[in-house]
Every structure is written in structure tokens, then in C-alpha cells.
């Protein structure tokens, strides 16, 4: 079997010509990935709150129905939020996409195996929750079609992308969450964001 793609190649393809796309990344490698492709105010890389990335995407997608929201996170982070699949599937906002970068390991903590290494199928679980189109990608060539779907706004999109294990060089976003949130809100809502009551 051919090796799974490099995670940053996948994220680069997902974020190509991203336009106004709003991106939330789960803590750890996913956050470093979106930063490596290009740090921008429309990125919200998480430094904590493991298991919260998809739900944060839901809150944002419901708040801004005309914006496109992409959550990029890892298999370990998503495994901590299996219930969120049900919560999100019930709301099913059209403008929300969730892409799980699945290397079947907890790469930040010493490459311990996750449950997906042992056959747990996140896409099947998402389908079971009611996200009908959920699927697993295994090659880089499949990513552009997923990217197009993310921009089409006919979601909720849920996709697992298998990626090669191993750690890449750290590319860290700003570490102050208050700055990350404030710059994101300003990019989306304008300077008035800082005066919201």
C-alpha cells in the first residue's frame, strides 16, 4: 500500500485559495499545520480545550450562517468529542466542515496509538450520527474535491483524511488566546467587534 500523504500537503491543498474561509484548528499538530501554511487573523489555532474544536466550529457556523467554517483537527482530538458528532448532526449547518487528520497516533505525546489504529472508523461514526456524506480519504489527489465541497456550503461536511505518522517542525501561532480571538473577531466583524455589548 502506498504511504499516506504528508499532513501539511493535505492542509495546504485544503487551504488553497481559501478566500474568506474561517479556520479553527484543534490543539497540537493541526494548529501548527494551519500556521505553517500561513498565519492569518481568520485562523483560530487552539492551544487548549481538547475535544472542543468541532463544537467551536458549530458555534461559529450557527453565528455566521453566510460564512464558511472549516475545522481541522486530529484523530485524538476528535475521539474526545464523539458526542459532538450527534450534537452537530442534529443542527447540521450547511456552512460547517470538519476534516480530521488521522495519523492513528497521539503525535504530540510520544506517538502512542489512538483507537483509529485499531479499527475505530470516525467517518462511519459520523455517518451513524447523521452526517450522511462522511467519508475517509487516503490520497492527496482526493483533497481538491473535498476543498470544493467545503467552499460549496452544502454541508455539514465531515471527512477523515489518513495521513502519514511522524512529527514535522513546529510552526507556532501566537500563544496569547486573547490576541487570537480578538484578531479573528476584528477580521470577521470589523473594528466594531471590540465594542460589542
Amino acid at each position, binding site marked *: 500500500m502506498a504511504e499516506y500523504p504528508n499532513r501539511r500537503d493535505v492542509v495546504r491543498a485544503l487551504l488553497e485559495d481559501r478566500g474568506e474561509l474561517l479556520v479553527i484548528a484543534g490543539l497540537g499538530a493541526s494548529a501548527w499545520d494551519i500556521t505553517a501554511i500561513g498565519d492569518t487573523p481568520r485562523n483560530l489555532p487552539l492551544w487548549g*480545550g481538547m475535544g472542543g474544536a468541532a463544537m467551536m466550529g458549530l458555534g461559529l457556523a450557527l453565528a455566521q450562517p453566510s460564512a464558511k467554517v472549516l475545522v481541522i483537527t486530529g484523530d485524538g482530538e476528535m475521539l474526545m468529542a464523539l458526542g459532538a458528532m450527534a*450534537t452537530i448532526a442534529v443542527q447540521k449547518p450547511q456552512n460547517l466542515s470538519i476534516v480530521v487528520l488521522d495519523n492513528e497516533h497521539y503525535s504530540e505525546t510520544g506517538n502512542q496509538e489512538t483507537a483509529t489504529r485499531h479499527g475505530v472508523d470516525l467517518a462511519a461514526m459520523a455517518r451513524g450520527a447523521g452526517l450522511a456524506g462522511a467519508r475517509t480519504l487516503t490520497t492527496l489527489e482526493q483533497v481538491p474535491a473535498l476543498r470544493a465541497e467545503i467552499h460549496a456550503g452544502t454541508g455539514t461536511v465531515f471527512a477523515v483524511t489518513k495521513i502519514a505518522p511522524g512529527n514535522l517542525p513546529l510552526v507556532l501561532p501566537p500563544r496569547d488566546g486573547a490576541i487570537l480571538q480578538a484578531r*479573528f473577531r476584528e477580521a470577521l466583524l470589523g473594528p466594531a467587534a471590540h465594542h460589542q455589548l
Partner: protein
Amino acid sequence: MDRQKLEMRPDAAAEWPDAIYEALKANGITQVALVPDAGHSRLIKRCLADNEMTVVTLTTEEEGVALLCGAWLGGVKGVLLMQSSGVGNCVNMLSLSHIHRTPLPMIVTMRGDFAEFNPAQIPMGQATPAVLEAMGTIVHRADRPEDVAATVDATLRLAFNTFRPAATLLGQRLIGAKTFGKD
């Protein structure tokens, strides 16, 4: 049987749940995250009937913390409704409110509190204020109907004006009387 209150639910004539709803409206709350509790049932009905409110029923309360952080990213104000047992499920996720400085109001119906029947409710119920405060939440408490509106309003104002988690605990003495299965 009257001494064995499995679920606490406000008397149907109690008006304080409506006062909470009015406070939510007055403060511009449009996203309501919740894990249902009998004590919140009337308020939940009011929110569900309101076309300006998006009600998100969660599988666990920590989802609500992340949801409201996302809502605020998008300029929308939300509230998390839960029972005191759910506070325990939120602990680490409350970090997000701190590190991002996200307004995070919570309205918590107490169990394991005044005249509790169920031993299993005691540990988390008794720990609820300490757990919230350990995570930097400003905690207010209302035990009398006449205190509810002002307490909830203060919690919402603190959260949104000063960018932090804040909670109103609705005491079991307030939530009161009826027994599970009788209505």
C-alpha cells in the same frame, strides 16, 4: 412519597423561569446551549418557542463551553444552561474562556443541595461552587424567587462586560417541590 423527591421541578405557577428568559432577551442572548434539567424545563420551553434563539442540545456540558466560544468568535452572545452535575463535565474546557477572554455565562440548577434525596447528587452538588471558582468563574447564587432576575442579569453583565466565565446557581430551595412522575 412526598419526602422522596427524585427530580426537582419548579411549581407550574412559579414565575422566576420567565424572569430568566426576560433577562436573556434583555441581554441579547440568541444562542442557548443546554443539557436539559427539570429545573430548567420551563425556561427551555420559552427558548425553544423563540424564533430569535438557536437552542443547541448538547450530549455533555463541556460541548457548550466550546460552542459559546465559537458563537462569540462570530459576534453572537450565548448562555449555557445546565444542572450542577454538568459543571463537573466542563472543567478543562473552561480554560478556553480564560485564554481567549470569552464571555461565558452559565445558569446552573442545583442538585445535591437543599433537602436532596439522592446520595449520588451530593458530591458534585456540594463541589459545584468550589469547582467553578477554581476555574476562575464569578459565582452568584439565588435561593429566593425575588432574587432570580437581578442575579441572572448580573451574571450576564459580568460575563459580557468583563470577558470571563460567570455563573448563577439556582438553589434547590428555589427550584422546589414537585416529584418526578407526578406531572
